[in-house]
């Protein structure tokens, strides 16, 4: 009787935990579904199908040197007196 009870409890734990893992693994995080590689390849295919308009980089090739000027703030009144 005790053996049967232990076996039943273990089986229930296994079924519940594995069902939870499969549920959360497959359905709750669909973007990271069971086969990550598959998803990555799907994403790559999507990227290939897109008509991409090249973006012209209008940034200057040389970054101007910024010189920092100290900011002098007026004294702040802390009380109304």
């Amino acid at each position, binding site marked *: 009787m005790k*053996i*049967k009870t*232990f*076996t*039943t409890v*273990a*089986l229930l*734990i*296994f079924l519940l*935990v*594995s069902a939870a*893992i*499969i549920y*959360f*693994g*497959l359905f*709750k*995080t669909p973007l*990271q*579904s*069971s*086969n*990550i590689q598959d998803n990555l390849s799907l994403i790559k295919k999507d990227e290939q199908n897109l008509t991409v308009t090249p973006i012209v980089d209008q940034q200057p090739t040389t970054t101007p040197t910024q010189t920092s000027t100290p900011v002098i703030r007026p004294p702040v009144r802390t009380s109304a007196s």
Partner: protein
Amino acid sequence: MKTKFIGPILIAALSVLTFLIWFLVRQGTPMFADYSVATHSLGQIAGLIGLTLFALTFVFTTRLKIVEDSFGGLDKVYQVHHLLGSLSFILILFHPLLLVIKFIPSNWPLAAKYLLPSSSVAVNLGITALLAMIILIALTIYINLKYETWKGSHRLFGFVFIIAFFHSFMITSDISRYNLLKFYMLFICALGIISFVYGSFIRPKIKDYPYKLKDIKSRGNVTILELEPINEKIAFKPGQFVFLKTNPKEQHPFTIASSPEENNIVLMIKSLGDYTSKIKELKKGTLVSIEGPYGKMWEELSSSQKPQVWIAGGIGITPFSSFVSHIAKTKSLKQKIDLFYCTSNNGEAFLLETLLEQAKAIPNLRIHDFCSADKGRIDLQKIESVVGKIEGKKFVLCGPLPMMESISKQLKQKGFSKNDILYENFNLK
């Protein structure tokens, strides 16, 4: 040391050895450093020890004498078989869970991936073995199948073990990484597979004794079979049991009621189920085969010098019939014996006259007819009122399980040790 302790010690030693070998080969690598490594290690250990115990369950089905001797009787062997079967199942259930739990909560999809079929043959074999094991265990413990259907389904465990073996050796794991562990597990698995093949396919063909049904009689709901050997007579000790096969597919255990000195053997079978109800339809001259003998009751009781109280419940009189017949012929047991023949009504004690006749040749034996319709259920008080002080006596019980458990419980409450209470539990299923 008594030989009946060798079996349990060997099981414990092999389980510990499995762990020790794993621990030895993993030296220098992190085993329990953090949550991820520790759960992975526990998963490996659960798988390894589970597989070891699973393999050992098949050793018990060989019914080899060395195995029976190591546990003190075939009934004890089957009790350990049940226990180990369940224990190995629990460990094998937790093996995949512990392996994937390290991915939780950071990567649920990866954890789920390992629990589902994939392109990996090794993983798929593991999933197949586990699912098949769950189904077979559920059939075994939750559904009351017919004996032969149950036996057929139970035999499938052998094939499940072979699948689990291939999973273990094909998958990347500590078994594939470390040769010492690989060869040790190979030895354990080979032991399991050889035992399965022997127990399921070879033993039934080589250990059978052909017999012919010489006579068949009915006494109420009990059928009495007298079997005559066709070639060699089976050598047995008083009170041992055999497996009777009236057709190639079915075999059931029954105690021999006759003494070893006789050429023919007598089996007394009470109608309790499908098979035992049909046994009375057998015709004289039918060829049957018997496998055995098994059981250690005579060895246990004849080795004790204590006065004995024998309690037989209904058809449980059969081993005592064999004992009495044997003692009457050989005068082999000198201890004082009180035999209680317990029945629910007067007509049920069909062996009483024969026993009383045989008891005339045994001065140290007293037979007490105990009919529960007149005297109520048997208990220690009633036994004491007949035999006097029971302390220092050895009790031998055979009959319905509730009766044996009740008397055994009362004796233990009185301070009797297990060694002084002898009974066989025939629940092989």
